């Protein structure tokens, strides 16, 4: 219906996934503002490229794939911005505010702390496979990589999470 020009049909199509997509974006970025930006971008892209959607596959996973791409694009942009800021900072150095750093540390969730030990690819794989519960093939498709790559990154991510919980956050292991 949407493809035939009925734009109002898009909203009921994506409404069931609006929270899931936001949760995925938040899982990938750990930032609520970024997550909203990414989810918005994902819905816009989904609408734009709806004609390319393969109806034999899961619509939810297709949306997740778009969101993962949008998150990666955003991370790249932010990386460039951070590099530019660092460059500017080198020219006019400013001491970091230790108080704000301490506060930020206090408000980090348990999952935040665990995920902070993962690299970007490991995080993507871990979130999609273990938190969003896509299977290996779907994860590979969403990240446009091979199943082998997913297994390697997943194995590494789980090992790091296990080590982090055992060594740095034992209270999590005890379930407190």
């Amino acid at each position, binding site marked *: 219906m949407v493809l035939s020009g009925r734009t109002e049909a*898009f909203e009921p199509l994506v409404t069931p996934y609006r*929270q899931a997509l936001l949760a995925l974006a938040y899982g990938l970025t750990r930032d609520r503002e970024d997550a909203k930006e990414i989810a918005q971008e994902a819905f816009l892209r989904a609408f734009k490229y709806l004609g390319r959607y393969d109806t034999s596959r899961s619509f939810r996973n297709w949306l997740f794939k778009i969101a993962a791409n949008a998150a990666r694009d955003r991370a790249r942009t932010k990386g460039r911005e951070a590099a530019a800021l660092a460059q500017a900072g080198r020219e006019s150095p400013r001491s970091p505010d230790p108080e704000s750093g301490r506060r930020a540390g206090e408000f980090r*969730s348990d*999952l935040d702390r665990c995920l902070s030990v993962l690299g970007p690819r490991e995080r993507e794989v871990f979130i999609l*496979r273990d938190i969003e519960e896509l299977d290996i093939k779907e994860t590979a498709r969403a990240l446009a990589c091979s199943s082998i790559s997913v*297994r390697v990154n997943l194995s590494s991510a*789980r*090992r790091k999470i296990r080590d982090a919980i055992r060594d740095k956050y034992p209270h*999590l292991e005890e379930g407190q």
Partner: protein
Amino acid sequence: MKCLKAKKAIPLLAGGDLSPRKERNVRAHLGICPSCRKELEEYRSALGRAKASAREEKPGDWSEPEWKSLMARITAEKGRKRTAVLGLRPRWVLASGLAAVIILAVTALFVKDTAFGPQVTSPVPGPDVVSVKMVSQETGLQVVWFFNKNFDWKGDKK
């Protein structure tokens, strides 16, 4: 299977991501190795905690105005897309119009100078012969002298 190999496979086994054949081999090893069994339990516990933490987290939802505004934006995109399909984006319209006017103006000038309109020709062919006509007032006699255009009036030419 030895512990070293089993330990590599345990993270995937903890999430049920091993192939059936590999899983059988690792499970056979786990049956005789308490250390690897303990490691598997640690992985399962860590995964369980991470999943529980994710469930406890509330990343929030869209407020209704936000959601409606997003959907409105998408609809607006559709409008823009349609316009683009017809090739009527404002910038392109302006550029195409300007180009058309310039082409028309140049063509008009060219056509005016060459193809159409009255042929501009010399009204009188250059005189090859000069004539002098004399008429008598009394008798009405007319005497006409014709001179070649190269006629030497002053007698300079020899």
